[in-house]
């Protein structure tokens, strides 16, 4: 109940900011990306953090969301919400498919298989003329702004709603039967199976939900850029960010990925603007390695330790 009030307050705040005049449009452009990473990190954590299955193929799910949106928009000029819904459903189906194929195997095989999916889909899109092939496709945004002043502001608010939705789902899963089962899988798969946890089934459910949320995060991208192109959509840098943020924030609690994503994505935006684009991948990479080695429980773990020692 308390959580619902917080969510409502956060959303009201976002609504206020995005309708307020006098704010530089760039804030909304950057804010969109940061919120997108909140969703991606949260989605990754559902499978990677709770169950310990590392998904390297984040861009595949983003791209399925984005290209589904493109196809829906180009063929029947579907509205944004339909695009997002469609993208989420197909990306969820992809998650289920990859899961069925490899979740019976050890974790590393699942990870490699997800990389494989990225490259296979990228090759298919490169050779698919309808969505622009390797050169990409220009899209004209519809004039539908609801009551916002600009398209960027509207997308920013839509992303905020989706982010709150994703975090709510992750929070619900954490304390549900599913979350407890996934944690049992992470600690010891054999022991979980022996105690009657339907390990494969819950892994598949988690993989589907995780994939669907990544698809949802990717679906508004074509409208955001009014352009789509495979090389940047299928960029593996998404993977390092989406797995780095939860690990840096802390994977054991739903708030971990949110903290990690907010801190790192903001840092990345600053680095991209002030220094260079390559460097922001390096920042995440170095921080990820540092945290994995020195503070494996992330920022949450550090806070916990600090609290215990100060008592």
């Amino acid at each position, binding site marked *: 109940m308390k959580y619902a009030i917080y969510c409502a307050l956060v959303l009201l705040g976002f609504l206020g900011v995005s309708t307020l005049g006098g704010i530089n449009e760039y804030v909304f452009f950057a804010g969109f990306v940061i919120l997108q990473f909140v969703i991606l990190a949260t989605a990754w954590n559902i499978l*990677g953090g709770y169950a*310990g299955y*590392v998904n*390297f193929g984040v861009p595949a799910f983003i791209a399925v969301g984005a290209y589904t949106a493109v196809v829906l928009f180009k063929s029947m000029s579907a509205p944004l919400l339909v695009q997002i819904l469609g993208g989420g459903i197909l990306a969820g189906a992809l998650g289920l498919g990859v899961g069925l*194929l*490899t979740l019976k*195997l050890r*974790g*590393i*095989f699942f*990870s*490699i*298989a997800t*990389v*494989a*999916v990225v*490259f*296979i889909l*990228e*090759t*298919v899109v*490169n*050779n698919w003329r309808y969505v622009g092939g*390797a050169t990409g496709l220009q899209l004209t945004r519809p004039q539908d702004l609801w009551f916002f002043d600009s398209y960027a502001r509207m997308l920013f608010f839509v992303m905020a709603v989706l982010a709150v939705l994703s975090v709510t789902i992750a929070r619900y899963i954490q304390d549900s039967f599913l979350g407890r089962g996934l944690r049992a899988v*992470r600690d010891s798969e054999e022991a979980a199976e022996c105690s009657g946890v339907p390990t494969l089934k819950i892994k598949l459910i988690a993989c589907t939900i995780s994939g669907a949320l990544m698809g949802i995060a990717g679906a508004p991208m074509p409208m955001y850029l009014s352009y789509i192109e495979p090389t940047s959509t299928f960029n*593996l*840098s998404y*993977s*390092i960010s989406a*797995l*780095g943020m939860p*690990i840096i924030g802390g*994977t054991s609690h739903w708030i971990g990925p949110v903290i990690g994503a907010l801190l790192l994505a903001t840092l990345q935006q600053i680095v991209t603007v002030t220094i260079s684009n*390559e*460097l922001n*991948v*390096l920042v*995440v*990479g*170095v921080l*990820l*390695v540092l945290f*994995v*080695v020195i503070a*494996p429980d992330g920022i949450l773990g550090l806070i916990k330790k600090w609290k215990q020692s100060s008592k």
Partner: protein
Amino acid sequence: MHGALLKSPIFYQKTLMFSVDLIFEAVLFGILLGCFYAAVSLGLSVAFGLLDVPYVAHPALLILGSYFTFVLSQTGIDPIVCGVLLMPVFFLIGIGFYRFYYETFEKRSSDTGVRGLAFFFGMSFIIEVCLILVFGVDQRTVVASYIGSSLEIGDYRFPYRMLVAFGIALTLTVALTLYFSKTFNGRAIKAVGQDEGALRLMGANPVKIKQLAFGIATAVNALAGAMLIIVGPVEPAMDRIYIGRTFCVVVLAGLGSMSGTLVAGLVLGIAESIVMMTFGASWAPAVSFGLLLLMLGVRPQGLFGR
């Protein structure tokens, strides 16, 4: 008008599909390519296949080897010699990597899977971005007398660079196979892959043996990197596609088999070469990853696995 039709890619592809002669040529080229793929995967076959370490940074180190070769060859040294000179350096890098991995992950043994994977994945991105920051995103090549010319036998032309790679690949495979079957240390490495606990009971130190194996795996990668830049231009982001090729070969081979690695490399090489000829080069990246997915779905223990 007639000429235009003949030159149009669609017509060209149709005729290629049914031409036995061209398939034969594709297979020949595939064999050369396949040996090359086997050689770049040998290190991973030891580190991941035998020792079960999720060595995702392997392809990034391969590209690092190529770039070191590029820098060394600027002084006028032959690229193959550069690769050999780099082997001791990479041996030490490999030992360092394993030592670090052991101290931080295996020894604490909590949640090794996620952290080990994230560590190596992060390392490969760090290597890639550092290469971009130092060398830029441009493609780099090396010069040698055997690059650019071909051996002609009848109607077939074999580029010397591919033949050189073929030679190195065979030498490496044979040397590693012999090492693992004939020498004391080689057998010890195989043993540690099979049963670490038993090895410890025999009074051997599994950590030292794994360290040695990791050094060898990474040293082999230096020569493979030199080979990579001999075969074609190299750019920093190339490690991503080699994740697919190397893991495909290792999984196809059935973890940890050296001769299996050669056969698996050949399968991938021939498959990729045929797809390139019939569907065009833009479909090539999907071959290794597709084969890998298929293998994981149908027979995850590999072609020669137990």
